[in-house]
């Protein structure tokens, strides 16, 4: 990897574009993601931009316990995201199904069965701080040796 490539990757890792998708949660984790955007946590000062378009996203935040309506749609959405990309599971639901993982329910957790998950943020819901530090900790690895891989 040349110096120019590593410089480009460094600059890329300082501007992370985030899309979030709710695959059937109770809306609690969505509110915590929304709180990251508010002045108290201010996600944009870290160079993280949330605009909900998978075509220009680097990081996909997956929220929710994967209801049947999302079959094939979540995989399609994951394919729409250009490389390099990672997915982060936000909350207990995409990890274990949490309260919804009971007999005779229709949810199909974990989300890692359907798309590759790079990081998991447990909690019901997780604190905005935890979401923020998870995004910041995966950010350097997303673009690491990206140009070499390509």
């Amino acid at each position, binding site marked *: 990897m040349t110096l120019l490539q590593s410089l480009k990757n460094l600059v890329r890792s300082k501007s992370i574009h985030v899309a979030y998708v709710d695959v059937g949660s109770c809306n609690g984790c969505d509110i915590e993601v929304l709180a990251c955007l508010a002045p108290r946590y201010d996600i944009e000062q870290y160079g993280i931009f949330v605009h909900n378009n998978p075509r220009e996203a680097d990081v996909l935040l997956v929220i929710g316990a994967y209801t049947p309506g999302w079959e094939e749609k979540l995989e399609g959405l994951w394919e729409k995201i250009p490389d390099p990309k990672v997915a982060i599971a936000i909350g*207990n639901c995409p990890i274990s199904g949490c309260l919804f993982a009971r007999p005779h329910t229709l949810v199909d957790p974990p989300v890692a069965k359907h798309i590759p998950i790079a990081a998991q943020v447990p909690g019901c819901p997780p604190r905005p701080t935890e979401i923020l530090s998870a995004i910041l900790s995966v950010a350097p690895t997303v673009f690491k040796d990206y140009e070499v891989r390509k």
Partner: protein
Amino acid sequence: MPLSLVYYAKEFFRGEWARKFLAAKTAPLEIPPYFRNYPELTGKTCTHHLFCMMACPAPGAIDVIRTPEGWMPRIHIGHCIRCGLCVEACPNGVLSSGRILESIFYDNTRLSFSFRIDVDQTKCMGCGNCAVACPVNKLIDAQMSHGGRASTDDLLLKVREGKCQVLHVEKCTGCKTCEHHCPNEAIRVARLLEAVHAPEEDP
């Protein structure tokens, strides 16, 4: 044109600009001490009453395992919803989370469990499986015979005149062993959890 390039260069090669570009302004906020985080062990001895597991609303979030040092509750991160009910329900203060232990001490509140056993007399066929399987009965009368008949009346459950009878419901520990051993689903154990303020001290 050359002048504007100079102007741009001057603007973008300032040390402050580069520092702001490369380093974030503030570190992520710290978790405050009063936050109810995942319960942690305080080091007190667990007496295996399993009230934490009974109070837990999330499936598979807590279990009590046997270690060489004794019984030990274990929290499963990814299942736990950090509600703190296990911390409040524990009679020994084995777990702690945030300021729950301090606040229940100052407010003098407690979660208390009581149990009710219902025997459906039309379904019960008096087999005595419940009375034989009951761990409380085993402690009182280890000699209890097959069929659930015994001479003493100190028992929790006993078969009398072909039907199961509940004698001392206050001895129940809510383990539901009887429920699992009943072939007819005739016996049901209800666990009643209630928050008590200023509980009277046991004499």
